[in-house]
């Protein structure tokens, strides 16, 4: 990709630029801002962790993870792979159905598919236990089975469910940017629908599928909220980290184990990077194209619809459980109607609700901007250094939440000094400026950035650089080009980035456990407390409220984004 852009630029400019495109001042400014942001968000906290991880005690933990405790490591990898495969597959099917099949109620299905991502991590797990546990309403009540959902099956189910929407949004975004004439060409050349699907459609969205797999794999191995609730005796690295920190305050051991967790995450990332770079396909050319024609062949539509409808049925059941659970005393045990759970929230949680909303509204746009800036630099301007930036940003999701949060606590509870000069006041903890809210917002940004970053990168790669070069040669500077030309072409990546940043902020839990303060309470940590205490009803009610809030915010931001696009178009 990168070499293509430099070659095409050098064609219409003087020969001296063969080594690469000249970087205008705005590129350098953006780069500087991004680097500072990344140092603050991920550089310092990760550095502190590396320091702790390679201390004597941390090294012992690393060694143990590969020797006596190798099972835990294997468990994590298996879980990540399975979540990646299942989630990407289901995400692909749902995205395909949304794009290529015409049927009534499509928009409803779209939102149902997205539901899991906007719920806090514990919510789905608790609902799954209620439905499919040993005494679950469905498994035991209806089918009279005695299943054990705790362990790998439950984890796989809940994690696949939580993260499938990421793959769905990512792949759907890419579908929408495809040139429909390619499919017409395929069918008029006599390709069967299945053949088209496998040899035309899938290769075109392979970058999105691979980046989805990456995100899902990493989320799968890094998630620790669900293993705590539904993990059974399936030990994973993430929960080991939690037990080390929360139990013994043993930062060094935790940091050591998290370095072990980083290894597979980074490996997959590098593999994906290498692979997609070779296979990327330019499909957005800026030439006029028509709308995608719906696929009608039943041989393809029926199985695809079946998979996606079954999936949606499962999701809908679980979220219905969640909703109902908030209104009855103890779902499945004592099903009498009650308001007590919402009463509880109103008494105890209204503070947390307001604070969480406010922090999300600050963090989400910033996270999306950061993602855009990184993607822009990586794909368009920094062919060599770009990979490093990309990787750096991805640490936001590759570093397990607990560990990132701990890194933040370590770095930002004291003022930051450079050569004896205080450059930053303490940002985390109860004594910090803003009651510790700044550190929480920073975590939100760090966690919200990677998915947006991946989808922006995929989108940039799909857009032929000549489109932008045309604007540049007409005198637009790079930033204007992005704003006026590139962004409107990848509106669906914008939606992915903003959506994910919002939902990540609203639902992040493990990363903020160590930095919530008396002044700044966060909804998810309140929910965690309720799950912990076994008050599923309160947790259900809280989660339903959170989901409704996220839906409202997403709805508004979607409308705004659409408005924005229309005014440009």
């Amino acid at each position, binding site marked *: 990709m990168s070499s293509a852009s430099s070659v095409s630029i050098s064609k219409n400019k003087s020969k001296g630029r063969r080594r690469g495109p000249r970087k205008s001042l705005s590129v350098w400014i953006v780069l500087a801002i991004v680097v*500072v942001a990344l140092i603050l968000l991920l550089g310092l906290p990760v550095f502190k962790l590396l320091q702790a991880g390679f201390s004597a005690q941390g090294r012992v933990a690393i060694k*143990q993870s590969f020797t*006596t*405790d190798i099972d*835990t490591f294997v468990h994590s990898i298996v879980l990540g792979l399975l979540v990646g495969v299942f989630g990407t597959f289901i995400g692909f099917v749902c995205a395909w159905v949304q794009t290529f099949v015409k049927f009534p109620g499509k928009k409803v299905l779209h939102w149902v598919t997205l539901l899991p991502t906007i719920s806090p991590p514990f919510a789905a797990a608790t609902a799954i*236990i209620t439905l499919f*546990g*040993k*005494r679950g309403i469905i498994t035991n009540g209806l089918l009279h089975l005695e299943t*054990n959902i*705790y362990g790998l099956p439950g984890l796989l189910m809940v994690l696949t469910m939580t993260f499938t929407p990421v793959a769905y949004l990512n792949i759907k975004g890419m579908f929408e940017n495809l040139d429909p004439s390619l499919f017409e060409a395929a069918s008029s050349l006599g390709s069967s629908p299945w053949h088209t699907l496998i040899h035309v459609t899938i290769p075109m969205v392979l970058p999105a599928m691979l980046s989805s797999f990456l995100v899902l794999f990493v989320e799968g191995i890094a998630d620790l909220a669900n293993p*705590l609730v539904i993990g*059974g*005796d399936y030990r994973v690295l993430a929960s*080991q980290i*939690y*037990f*080390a*920190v*929360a*139990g*013994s*305050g043993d*930062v060094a051991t935790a940091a050591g184990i998290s370095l072990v967790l980083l290894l597979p995450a980074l490996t997959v990332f590098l593999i994906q990077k290498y692979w997609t770079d070779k296979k990327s396909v330019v499909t957005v050319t800026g030439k006029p194209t028509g709308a995608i024609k719906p696929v009608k062949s039943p041989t393809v539509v029926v199985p695809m619809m079946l998979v996606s409808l079954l999936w949606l049925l499962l999701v809908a059941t679980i979220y219905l459980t969640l909703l109902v659970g908030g209104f009855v005393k*103890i779902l*499945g*045990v*004592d099903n009498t109607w009650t308001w007590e759970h919402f009463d509880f929230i109103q*008494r*105890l949680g209204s503070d947390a609700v307001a604070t969480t909303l*406010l*922090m999300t509204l*600050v963090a989400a746009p910033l996270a999306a901007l950061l993602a855009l800036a990184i993607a822009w630099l990586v794909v368009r301007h920094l062919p060599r250094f770009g990979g490093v930036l990309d990787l750096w940003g991805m640490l936001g999701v590759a570093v397990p939440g607990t560990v990132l949060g*701990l890194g933040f*606590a*370590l770095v930002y*509870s004291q003022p930051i000094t*450079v*050569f004896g*000069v205080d*450059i*930053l006041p303490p940002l985390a*903890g*109860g*004594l910090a*400026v*803003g*009651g510790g*809210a*700044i550190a929480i*917002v920073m975590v939100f940004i760090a966690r919200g950035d990677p998915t947006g970053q991946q989808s922006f990168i995929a989108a940039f790669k799909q857009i032929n650089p000549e489109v932008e070069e045309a604007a540049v040669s007409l005198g637009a500077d790079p930033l204007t080009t992005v704003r006026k030309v590139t962004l409107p072409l990848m509106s669906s990546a914008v939606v992915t980035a903003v959506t994910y940043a919002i939902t990540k902020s609203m639902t992040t839990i493990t990363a903020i456990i*160590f930095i919530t303060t*008396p*002044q*700044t309470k966060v909804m998810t940590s309140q929910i965690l407390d*309720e799950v*912990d*205490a*076994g008050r*599923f009803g309160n947790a259900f009610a809280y989660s339903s409220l959170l989901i409704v809030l996220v839906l409202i915010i997403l709805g508004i931001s979607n409308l705004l984004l659409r408005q924005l696009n229309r005014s440009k178009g």
Partner: protein
Amino acid sequence: MSNYKLALRLIAGISGVAMLVPMAACGGSSSAKSNAGSVSVACSQQEDFCQAMTRAFSKETGIKTTYVRLGAGEVLARLATNPGEFDVWAGGQAENHLLAQDKGWIENYKSSAASNYPTDYKDPSGSWTGFYTDSIAFCSSKSELKKKNLKAPTSWNDLLSPTLKKSVGMPHPATAGVGYMAMYTQAVLHNGDEQQSVNYFKQLNPNVMQYSKSAATGTEQAGRGEVTVAIALDSDCEKAIQAGYSDLVTTYPKEGTGYEVGAVSVLKNAHNKDNAKKFTDWILGTKAQNLYAGVPSFAAPTNPKATIGKNVPNQNKVKKVKWDMRKAADSRDTFIKAFESEVSSSKDAK
């Protein structure tokens, strides 16, 4: 040189302002202060308890009271990273407060409100004072027991029955005090032999469905029938029963069981030390202790004059093992390490 420093300051200023501006709205809420000042509480109890207590204290004294609910282990981690963040630590086993004392994070304070307390419920040096107490019990589901043709367990050995395979709930010793208390109890029952205790839990491992992060999780799992028996606090089991899990029953091991004393302590780097002491005095007083039942909380108040709520398990009738707070605190690390390396990863028993 001065140019360099100036540039640094400039960058700092710009980035600082850029970040502060959006956050101004957030920080504003905490700036309102009344004359009585404020106090910040690390609360290791259940959310509703923390809320009820801090609110009542605030109402009575006019002192603005904020709290974060954190497990004892989490508090210890936070005290290490953010000294001065909290003024007073309320809740969590006294052992944890002793560990904090060892690290020099606690200021000794002998509250006059505790002068009539039994010696079991306060530290002679004043590092901690207990404001509630409860014991380890077996919290079982009657219908699950019936299905397995078992009686409610009355001995630690009853839990080892092969019929209970994957049917026991046990809190993780690293994060939940009860899990670790159970380990220490076993050691006491074996004349202080720590390895014997580890062996017991190795035998129990195949029967454990999940080591839960929190103490109360097991009671809910039993209430739902996901497990048959949970090792839990009697107060938590009672709380679950009152919350609607009416199928649960509390029993105690006949060999004797461990108990916890939930403690309060004044933190050394407190910014509002006087208010921290006021809070300590208040929560140990009869008036505050009489509030427990209304929360509702089913831990027994430690103040001999406090009225004990109707459904609170009677702690005087529980057969307890001889508890050495100091020893229990000292062996915590050994137990948690042994648990991680030998018990939860052990496969031989399966």
